[in-house]
């Protein structure tokens, strides 16, 4: 008797968590069903491609099929680094992103502080609206806007500035030396307003008591800006910066593809990892290079995000991603 009581008892203890999980799953099966479409979409769009990273070590041959293609070890990577392309695109990607980050952060904080000083509500709303608009315009249209200024025959700069001044016109889309500046201006135009609004949200959240206390002590506007506003939004600045550094290996494909009108003559200053992968895959059909460069980007990006999160955690655990 005693054993027969103990035996089933141990059995229930052993299988209890599992059984309980299944029971609970059955009880909440409706919640599971609600989650299934999202689960499936993420599986197709995100997880299946992740399993495909092994393609970087294969010589993809469509007739042999994806799984049947030959393994080539690190040959794709060797081939990529054998030319100077790999170092060039990595250098471009990082340098552009650093420049964008530095300029955007300084300007956006400055603008946010200025916006916070605007007392007229309608005026403030007008500034925010116009500054945000570029963020919601597609890169294709941005390409048109750039073309409006730089079209070699009809563009505003050649036709209305350089020609009347008696200077020689410039074939913009064939002159790589100008593009680091042009792309920086376009990027600032497109993102600085959005960043300023984000920083403004942080400034608005500052407790008004700090300012009142400062005014009682006789601090003027300038003192309040530099001694209260800027120090108190510094954590937000640091976190936004760290997050941007986590993405430093990912270039804005749209900017580099559309603003340059995909001009091959500009590659020596405008080719970045993302445009390189795109060209290798869909223009030249060099899938090995596309896979190798893509994997390199994913892995470095992953390591950067994890590292940056560690650092953010040290500053303030509230703002860490995970």
């Amino acid at each position, binding site marked *: 008797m005693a054993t027969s009581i103990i035996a089933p008892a141990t059995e229930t203890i052993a299988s209890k968590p599992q059984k309980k999980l299944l029971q609970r799953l059955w009880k909440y099966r409706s919640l599971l069903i609600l989650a299934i479409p999202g689960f499936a979409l993420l599986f197709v769009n995100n997880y299946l491609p992740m399993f495909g990273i092994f393609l970087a070590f294969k010589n993809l041959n469509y007739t042999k099929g994806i799984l049947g293609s030959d393994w080539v070890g690190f040959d794709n990577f060797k081939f990529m680094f054998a030319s100077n392309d790999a170092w060039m695109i990595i250098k471009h990607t990082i340098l552009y992103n650093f420049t964008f980050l530095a300029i955007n952060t300084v300007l956006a904080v400055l603008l946010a502080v200025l916006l916070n000083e605007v007392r007229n509500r309608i005026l403030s709303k007008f500034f925010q609206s116009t500054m945000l608009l570029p963020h*919601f315009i597609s890169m294709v249209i941005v390409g048109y806007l750039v073309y409006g200024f730089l079209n070699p025959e009809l563009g505003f700069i050649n036709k209305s500035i350089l020609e009347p001044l008696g200077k020689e016109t410039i074939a913009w889309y064939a002159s790589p030396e100008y593009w680091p500046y042009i792309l920086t201006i376009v990027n600032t*135009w497109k993102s600085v307003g959005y960043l300023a609004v984000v920083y403004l949200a942080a400034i608005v959240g500052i407790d008004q008591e700090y300012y009142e206390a400062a005014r009682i002590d006789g601090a003027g506007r300038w003192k309040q800006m530099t001694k209260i506003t800027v120090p108190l939004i510094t954590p937000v600045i640091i976190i936004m910066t760290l997050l941007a550094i986590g993405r430093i290996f990912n270039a804005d494909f749209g900017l580099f593809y559309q603003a340059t009108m995909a001009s091959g003559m500009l590659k020596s200053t405008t080719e970045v990892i993302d445009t390189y992968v795109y060209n290798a895959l869909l223009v030249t059909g060099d899938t090995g290079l596309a896979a190798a460069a893509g994997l390199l980007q994913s892995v470095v990006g992953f390591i950067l995000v994890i590292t940056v999160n560690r650092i953010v955690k040290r500053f303030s655990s509230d703002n860490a991603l995970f």
Partner: protein
Amino acid sequence: MTPKNRTNPLVLIPLFLLSLACLIPLWLIFMVSLTNENDISTYGYRFWTDNFDFTAYRYLRHDAETIGRAFGVSILVTIIGTVVSLFVTSAMAYSLSRKEFPLRGFLSFYVFFTMLFSGGLLPWYLVYTRMFHLQDTLMVLIIPGLIGGFNIFIMRTFFTNSIPPSLIDSAQIDGASEYRTYFSIILPLSLPVLATIGLFVTVSYWNDWFTSLVFINNEKLYTLQYFLNKTLLNALFLQSIANKAYSSTAIITPPLESIRMAMAMLAILPISLVFPFLQKYFVKGLTIGAVKG
């Protein structure tokens, strides 16, 4: 000393200049779209014209076959994509927001990991083209934009913070099923977050050209953005479209330059029209996106 409620002009001047800088490129394109073709070839693109000419817009009105079609594809993709996306995202977010749900931890990580690591362009391309054979379909324009980890987490946070669990409990004691709770209690109470995310999904579908660039070769499935992209990068494409509709209009030579810019204006129009009215939601979306919600 300036009075308290007056803004210092030193503050206003840089802000005015910046606002101007944001609008000026759009103004240039707009003026070109209204300029007589002869003036464009003589003076180039300018910020003002003495001879206003609406030929480009009149021409586009007649051209239902090409740009009208692209408009249609964009509208269709945007509407279907946004509606389906909101359902799929909110349903998953609702499950993840329920503490009783046994797979909550696992599924949260499953979603989260997609935000950390990606397989890259090539495998992604192969999944849609070689596995599912979706190139040149409307489906491929819709599916990739349907779901994203970020939106799921923003909605989950909203559900957890703004909907008291006791409300769900009492609904279910009254006999409401999970589906009923989700449809008749959660969704109506979540209109602010649905509006904010819906707006961003709408804009990203409307502005998307990358999916078409990668997957679409069939001219009939060009979205408006991709159509514009083609006309900018490929002068022959623009010419062929102009010639196609040439017979249906009374215009002798199609004004290519102004047509091009008029099309760009039409593509910005929907967003610029709603923008001032929905600015609150745009700002909200940006700030929950950047400073964790």
